[in-house]
């Protein structure tokens, strides 16, 4: 039973990070109906920015996190302006290709600037783990869980209780109607990309610190998992992304502990396929009936 709870803690930690990243996918999808394949790589760049702020500019962890989030948010807006806005009216697959182009560009940019090696992330926020019975809860785990829950709560308040948030939900519900209501859809899309990218930077930095590893292709696996989490929860749904992330984190850790560590990721994907077959729009997705 101790193993179960230990894996629950581990699962919730990575799950909360998946959720943070999944939010970026789901928010963009909710409005533009495109899968932002460059999201994982935006996360990677954000992580490197955080690393540079800590190692070269000697910022403390929290200010570095905040500044990196801000810079990455601006980068997210730029990516949308340059690569997505011109193809917004084209086929969805075209936007996907554009996103892939951005993804390849960012990975290779990072490799040119920072090399292909893995960098440690010296954040100096470690400490002795808290021990409850047999279950160890690391300080880094508390950081990861705490920061992501705080950010998610902030997003929840923003989306549900501010005018901008209402406009965002309206746009996600129906872009054309939102525009008729006088909402500046372009601005909303920019804000969406900014928030998604900022959250991704935070998640990336926490991942970098948690595993003490930052490298140019780190966005690939993190992005893939988070995307899975977003679909699991029902892509387009913000609470769905949070639920999907946490659920995926817990399930894959428990699965790895009780079944096979090597097949950890395979378990995650198998679960995803099974859940989608049972509930084709994800756990909390809107069920859209095809009508004639």
């Amino acid at each position: 039973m101790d193993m179960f709870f230990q894996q629950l803690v581990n699962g919730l930690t990575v799950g909360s990070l998946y959720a943070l990243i999944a939010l970026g996918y789901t928010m963009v999808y909710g409005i533009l109906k495109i899968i932002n394949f460059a999201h994982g790589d935006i996360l990677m760049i954000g992580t490197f920015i955080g690393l540079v702020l800590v190692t070269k500019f000697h910022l403390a962890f929290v200010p570095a996190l905040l500044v990196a989030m801000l810079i990455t948010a601006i980068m997210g807006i730029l990516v949308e302006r340059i690569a997505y806005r011109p193809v917004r009216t084209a086929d969805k697959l075209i936007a996907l290709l554009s996103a892939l182009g951005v993804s390849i560009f960012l990975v290779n940019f990072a490799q040119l600037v920072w090399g292909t090696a893995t960098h440690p992330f010296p954040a100096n926020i470690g400490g002795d783990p808290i021990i409850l019975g047999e279950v160890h809860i690391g300080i880094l785990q508390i950081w990861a869980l705490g920061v992501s829950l705080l950010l998610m709560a902030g997003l929840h308040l923003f989306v549900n209780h501010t005018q901008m948030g209402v406009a965002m939900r309206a746009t996600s519900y129906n872009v054309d109607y939102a525009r008729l209501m006088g909402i500046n859809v372009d601005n909303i899309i920019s804000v969406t990309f900014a928030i998604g990218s900022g959250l991704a930077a935070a998640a990336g930095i926490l991942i970098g610190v948690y595993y003490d590893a930052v490298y140019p292709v780190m966005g690939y696996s993190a992005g893939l998992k988070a995307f899975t989490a977003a679909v699991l929860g029902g892509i387009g749904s913000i609470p769905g992304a949070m639920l999907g992330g946490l659920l995926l984190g817990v399930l894959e850790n428990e699965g790895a502990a009780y079944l096979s560590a090597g097949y950890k990721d395979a378990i995650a994907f198998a679960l995803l396929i099974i859940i989608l077959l049972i509930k084709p729009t994800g756990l909390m997705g809107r069920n859209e009936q095809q009508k004639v």
Partner: protein
Amino acid sequence: MEHLARFTLNWRNKTATLVLLAILLVIPLLVSNEYYIHVLITLGLFVILSLSLNLVSGYTGQLSIGHAAFYGIGAYVTALLMLKLNVSFLLALPASGLVTAFFGLLLGLPTMRLAGDYLAIVTLGFGEIVRLVLLNWDKVTRGPMGLPGIPAPELGTYIFMSKTPFYYLVLVLALLTVLAMRRIVNSGFGLSLIAVSQDELAAEAVGINTLRCKISSFIISAFFAGVAGGFYAVYISFVSPDSFTFMDSIMVLEMVVLGGLASIPGSIIGAVVLGLVPELLRFMAEYRMLIFGALMVVIVIFKPDGFWSARKRTRNAIMKDLVARNMLDGKTVKPRGEVSESA
């Protein structure tokens, strides 16, 4: 008049095709540089892969981002058959196509309930699961170390020693794929695939068994990808899970989309362009992939329909075609007119 125009066009196309074929046949005699031949062989593989994915994602409209899994399964089946069971290449190649086709059937089944992005994510999951099984099933696949020493193919007493026979083999395979795909998409079955991609509900309403269409296209597509994988295994003589990743699936999808969805020349052009560009950019050394990524964004912005799109074919034309072929028992189908995409 229309017939005459079509005839001239066909004739011109045929001449162009024959000239192209002749050039392709004599290339190895003129080019002695092994590297160029190698690039051409990889282009041939890309052509088979993009054509096979085009059937599913282009014609049938089922977005698949796990195509590399079929390629990988084909490669491993050929490798294992030849290494462990000493099966000859001539048997192993079709066998890997058939085994892969079975996996195509498996991946086709979820289309019963899923479509669009949700189906895409299932194909992604499938691709990752296959890769992870190849990576972890040590006893059979040797995990990340891969399977080295796959023997060269033998045709009777002739053993493939240089790159030239491989070139001709991949040329034959690619041509067979082109011919097969042409026959498929120009048949009544092919038209029903297009109907499924345009409007599944309408297709069903005119009596097309949409599920069978979707599953069949996955099976056929997987077969060809599996054969390509089998060729890859004997050509490189080494297989490892690294060669069949998500990025490889995405590359193939890119070829299909950039070339132009639901278009055979498009898929070929897409494969050739995307296969060549990274090679042509080699002089840029470490900036190569950086430029490649930026170039992709630029191409997409300026050419959002792909190089050779067949998208202009409207649903009306397809329905008319179906009626003309007595697919619909002469019952006229009144198209619903253009439905706006954003609704």
